[in-house]
């Protein structure tokens, strides 16, 4: 049966029962005036924002982690003062970002720093990327530090330089070790994109709320939003699991 015809027939009833009423509300939240399209518009934005924030977060995270690690691994007596300064900046960045709530950072970026910006979605992506960078940096740094120092020593004792040792020996092993926490961070990031609606970023929650202002019925738009996020996270977790299994190749005994 055609959903619209069914809706019309239920709408005409004087006293619809629970199921008929449920259907009417769901129809209002999804089919009515092709509202479902707007969820997918929001979904597109969400994915876009996630990817932009992810790239920014990873770039910032790697940069900060490398600077912090290189600084800590300097030979005593050969400390580079410039590196010390950059290291201090990185430390402040990580401290401030991790020490303040995501929501507050977003509002400061949206309503103070970029108050005059029209493209709030981009501002949201930027804030998320900067936020994620601090966490990614700590995850990467933890991975680099958790690796047996003997690996670095073995590489260096063979005459490989610092960068080659990092590239071929330390980073591949650290990457495998941090993949679960990195995946976790990306899931957090994906879900945090829902926050950008507070500064006017046009992702799924933004459109769900727009529908609620018309229907005065919050239940279905929010449940639909939740399901969309859940599906995205499930797909991502599945991909992550595949990657982890592939990287585990060298563990077989």
């Amino acid at each position, binding site marked *: 049966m055609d959903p619209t015809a069914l809706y019309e027939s239920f709408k005409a009833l004087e006293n619809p029962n629970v199921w008929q009423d449920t259907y009417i509300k769901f129809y209002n939240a999804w089919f009515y005036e092709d509202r479902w399209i707007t969820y997918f518009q929001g979904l597109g934005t969400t994915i876009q924002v996630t990817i932009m924030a992810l790239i920014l977060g990873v770039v910032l995270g790697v940069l900060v982690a490398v600077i912090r690690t290189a600084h800590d691994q300097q*030979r*005593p*007596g*050969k400390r580079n003062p410039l590196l010390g300064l950059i290291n201090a900046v990185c430390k402040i960045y990580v401290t401030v970002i991790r020490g303040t709530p995501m929501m507050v950072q977003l509002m400061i970026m949206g309503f103070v720093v970029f108050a005059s910006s029209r493209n709030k979605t981009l501002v949201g992506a930027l804030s998320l990327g900067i936020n994620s960078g601090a966490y990614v940096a700590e995850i990467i740094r933890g991975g680099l530090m958790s690796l*047996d120092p*003997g*690996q670095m*020593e*073995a*590489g*260096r*004792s*063979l*005459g*490989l*330089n610092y960068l*080659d040792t990092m590239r*071929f*020996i330390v980073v*591949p*092993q650290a990457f*495998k070790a941090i993949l679960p926490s990195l995946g976790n961070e990306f899931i957090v990031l994906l879900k945090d994109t829902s926050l950008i609606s507070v500064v006017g970023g046009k992702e799924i929650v933004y459109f769900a709320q727009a529908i609620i202002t018309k229907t005065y019925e919050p239940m279905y738009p929010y449940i639909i939003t939740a399901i969309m996020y859940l599906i995205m996270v499930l797909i991502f977790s599945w991909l992550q699991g595949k990657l982890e299994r592939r990287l585990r*190749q*060298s*563990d*077989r*005994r």
Partner: protein
Amino acid sequence: MIDVKQLSKSFGDHLVLDKIDQHIYPGEKVVVIGPSGSGKSTFLRCLNLLETPTGGSITFDGVELTDPKVDIDAVRRQMGMVFQHFNLFPNMTIRKNITLAPVRTKLMSQAEADDTATALLKRVGLEEKADAYPNQLSGGQKQRIAIVRALAMRPKVMLFDEPTSALDPEMVGEVLDVMKELAEEGMTMVVVTHEMGFAREVGTRVLFMDGGHILEENEPKEFFAHPREQRTIDFLSKVL
């Protein structure tokens, strides 16, 4: 070949090496023994600057290692090092473990390095393990690979840091055999070990370290038969 002058090393307030003077000549097999915490591993690790000395100097083939301008990577290429815990790269096959450094440092082409790896693996009887990963090997096999990996760089001297201490007793022999062979070929070796049999049989000189000093040194027969210092006598009576 390696000239050590007034070498000191301290970790914070803790003095581990106290003004050590030592010279290692080409072809020598120097065995360093002593109680744990005596500084013998630190001494060895200073020789290729895995530990930065806090005082004194180390000269290798006329190059002053402690000079900040020295290209330490170039020096390390000529000094092979074998670790207590093997430190093979678990993310690479055995072949890759061996060929990575010679290829990256442009000592050999990939093809040359592969040939070298095959030849060296054959020598230690592990040629069929070339495509295995380190985690698939026993401790003794890992350590033999680690020796081969260092040899692939064609070093002038080999440093061994307690190479058999992390092995099951029955695997110690196979690693010592490889080291003996290497000694017979004339490789200059500095070996930190608790294997007194190896010291006696292979060493050309034994250093006894305690408390950051080299208390006594002698050629092995004399050293084990007539130790001079009371501390050496005590130590030997406990380990022999």
